[in-house]
């Protein structure tokens, strides 16, 4: 039966065992709950999932959860919404495997199913035929905000967004915590953890609904984008489309987003009125690169980040001397938490990760561009040079202004006051 995830149709790698059927060796199998209870976990299966009716008490599943890779919840009809609450309970129990909604649900329920914690939706053939692909996508993309907190999906929680606008950090355990204290606490908590685990925790535990990734879709971006696609395909990904990028970057952004199934990519563009007023000719980068970065990167990003409580960047310590002291969690000038999950990865490790996951390189890397920015201010790097030496060559500028170094703002940020 057709299966879709947050991105769209996807192949079903699981086998539903019929009554008495022996689990094929190494296969991923889904058993009815009754059989799991009677016979326990089958031998030889590669991974085990269970299918539960929607009147099952999720609490009785708890003992099985640590060994289950998938839970499939029955939806006998689209109008029977018990499965939504079962999903929230299972996620509440800490279940991190695949959660599947199985039954004749309708396209309009897609965003709700994803929000309560379902990863995949399996609908009957007949139902799938009547519901067009664009209906599903339209439904999924129709809601970009939610009033609820603690949900799992890319839509922004309004309560979180207001908190972020107020410049406050989430308070936990009833105690007020400054952003700096929070960053310190999170650094202590996650130091040494794998980037994927930090990302998962940030997206689902620490900042649910309040996290975004900022990506340049540059030379090394694919690794982090791939990790995000594993954690939450609908996580908002902010891409600064300055209007001055290489055509190859734009093409790479589209093909890579599609390949990874990222559904939360938002193009962040400079304000048209500001461009008209400050750089009508598109030549500001020549006399004043800082002003151009401010117009095309810093201010648009600041606006785009306003609803978020925390953001993820792909910065690494090895990249420049300035970044040598990069922490995992930092605080930006607006009081938001900034997460650098790849802080201690080096070029080799990233390269290996990209090979291991068969990720495509930015086409210009092979042409001698290890770091990519806007076309007018990016040049090739010669062997032996710092990889970012090609950025703003001929000036002492090393950052565009959207990042701070050592707790200091590298360039003035008009909204940071």
């Amino acid at each position, binding site marked *: 039966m057709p299966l879709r995830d947050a991105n769209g149709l996807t192949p079903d790698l699981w086998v539903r065992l019929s009554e008495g059927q022996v689990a094929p060796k190494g296969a991923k199998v889904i058993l009815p709950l009754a059989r799991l209870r009677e016979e326990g976990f089958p031998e030889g299966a590669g991974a085990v999932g269970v299918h539960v009716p929607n009147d099952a*008490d999720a609490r009785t599943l708890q003992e099985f959860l640590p060994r289950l890779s998938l839970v499939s919840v029955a939806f006998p009809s*689209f*109008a*029977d*919404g*018990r499965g*939504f*609450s*079962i999903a*929230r*309970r299972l996620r*509440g129990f800490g279940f991190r495997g695949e959660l599947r909604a199985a039954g004749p649900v*309708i396209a*309009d*329920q897609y*965003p*709700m*199913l994803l*929000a*309560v914690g379902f990863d995949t939706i399996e609908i009957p053939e007949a139902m799938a035929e*009547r519901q067009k692909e664009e209906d599903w996508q*339209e439904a999924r993309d*129709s*809601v*970009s*905000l*939610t*009033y*609820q*907190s*603690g*949900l799992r999906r890319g839509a922004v929680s*309004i*309560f979180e*967004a*207001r*908190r972020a606008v*107020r410049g*406050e950090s*989430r*308070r*936990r*355990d*009833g105690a007020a915590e400054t952003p700096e204290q929070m960053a310190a606490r999170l650094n202590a908590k996650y130091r040494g953890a794998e980037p994927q685990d930090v990302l998962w925790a940030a997206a689902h535990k620490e900042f*649910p609904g309040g996290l975004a990734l900022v990506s340049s879709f540059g030379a090394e971006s694919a690794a982090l984008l791939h990790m995000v696609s594993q954690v939450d395909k609908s996580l908002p990904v902010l891409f600064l489309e300055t209007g001055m990028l290489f055509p190859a970057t734009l093409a790479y952004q589209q093909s890579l987003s599609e390949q990874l199934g990222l559904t939360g990519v938002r193009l962040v563009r400079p304000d048209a009125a500001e461009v008209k007023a400050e750089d009508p000719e598109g030549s500001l980068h020549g006399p004043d690169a800082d002003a151009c970065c401010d117009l095309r990167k810093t201010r648009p990003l600041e606006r785009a980040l306003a*609803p978020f409580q925390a953001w993820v960047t792909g910065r690494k310590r090895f990249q420049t001397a300035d970044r040598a002291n990069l922490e995992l969690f930092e605080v930006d000038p607006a009081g938001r938490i900034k997460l650098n999950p790849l802080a201690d990865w080096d070029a080799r490790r990233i390269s290996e990760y990209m090979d291991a996951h068969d990720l495509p390189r930015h086409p210009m890397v092979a042409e001698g561009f290890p770091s990519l920015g806007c076309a007018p201010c990016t040049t090739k790097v010669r062997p032996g040079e710092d990889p970012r030496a090609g950025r703003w060559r001929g000036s002492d500028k090393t950052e565009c202004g959207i990042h701070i170094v050592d707790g200091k703002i590298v360039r003035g940020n008009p909204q940071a006051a």
Partner: protein
Amino acid sequence: MYRYDEFDAQIVNERVAQFRGQVARRLSGALKEDEFRPLRLMNGLYLQLHAYMLRVAIPYGTLSADQMRQLAMIAERYDRGYGHFTTRQNIQYNWPKLADVPDILQHLADVEMHAIQTSGNCIRNTTSDPFAGAAADEIEDPRPTCELIRQWSTLHPEFTFLGRKFKIAVTGAETDRAAIRVHDIGIQIVRNADGEVGYRMFVGGGQGRTPMIAPVIRDFLPRRDLLPWLEAALRVYNLHGRRDNKYKARIKILVHEMGAEAYAKEVEEEFARMDREVIAPDQEEIDRIAAYFAAPAWEALPEESKRLEAGKKADPAFARWAETNTHAHKAPGYVSVVISLKPIGGAPGDATAEQMRLMASAADTFSQGELRITHEQNVVLAHVKKDDLPSLYNMLKTQGLHAANLGLVTDIIACPGLDYCALATARSIPVAQAIAQRFADEDRQREIGPLAIKISGCINACGHHHVGHIGILGLDKAGVESYQITLGGAPGEDAAIGTRTGPGFAFEEVPDVIEKLVDRYLAIREPGETFLQTYRRAGMPAFKEAIYAPA
């Protein structure tokens, strides 16, 4: 009152855009009616007997003068020049064209209104005390709590496909003017022994086919825990509520069948398991919302108003209105005014576009630019200076909005009934009109005193007949309308479900029957007794005899 911020506005605008697409698909034939149905219901659009009906949410019944003017514009441009205010403090338009509905929703969004979740098996518009923020007896204005619930419940992904619809009401006073005990969840704002303000939670009340008074499930809930606790209460219902029979699917049946204690235990367990810190809004958010409802600066006025007293002396009709249609205000020299939408012979709750505009102007001139819709289908101007009552009265008179019958026998609640509603089994509005006509004499109404007649045109009880002092339920008996009478119902803190008198009556008999009941009450009442008090003292037999004894 609350104003949208950029996020509130965006979420409503996105919804309008989405529905526009869905309507286009329906009109082009890409969507069949049965597929379109759940989508339109999520946006408050019903298919009724003669046409589509659009129900617009008026959150906890509060709206601004500008919003009222927009409702008037919609009535004029897209309907037949009037709208119907409902017992859920909402407004319904009975004649919109499907193709126009997206535009109507956009006009609503422009003034920070919507029709989201005014139907369907989801959490409906939260209702409240129409005198919120003005009543002398309240612990706290309940509207910030209502607004918090409005936001949390809007498009809640877990609770959009419940077993049945779900209604929440909040009161901030001991005197219950929001009928919280006959709601799925009723919330009373209370102060505990330490002086801390929190909530008493009633769960499992309701009217409809199986009326029930809600038991207290949590005696004191700290303010900050409200949303997590509601989430737990709804989750237990969503998981365990009956789905086999739509007539047994409301939470009242679950609480009744499980028992209040067992239900409470499940909720508390669920509540204890939740990550409450994540679900609850922080204090700053609670304060942010509350700030919108801060009391206006009251003028220092004497309690007595010379102008009011002079006006009363000059015009007995005004004096009657000023006595009947006002409610005590917390600030000296102010009152809350109730504009009756129950003129003799009118349809209860209906208002024309001109009347809506006049009420908006009256609000601007006399009551801080704000209005309330009551669940008795009237309109409240909450903050009026006593000095201004004569001017206000004269203004209302120009549009026939000066009926002096609040709480009296002609202030009848009635659902739309068979004249509009696809579910109705009998007419309601004509019954209300006939009774009002019978008791049109103003002196007689005053002689009878407080008496709430409530009429529903079917078992679903939209006209709240179960909690009417006299309830009237219109049924279909083999193709003929038959009206069952109940006595002794009450919606407030002394909530009671009315008791049936016996066999039903024909449509044309109803005014006679009501008159006999009233005459019996007048004959046997003790000095100072209201109808309800006499009924509670004398019991059913005295009244039963009056209407069934052979003449």
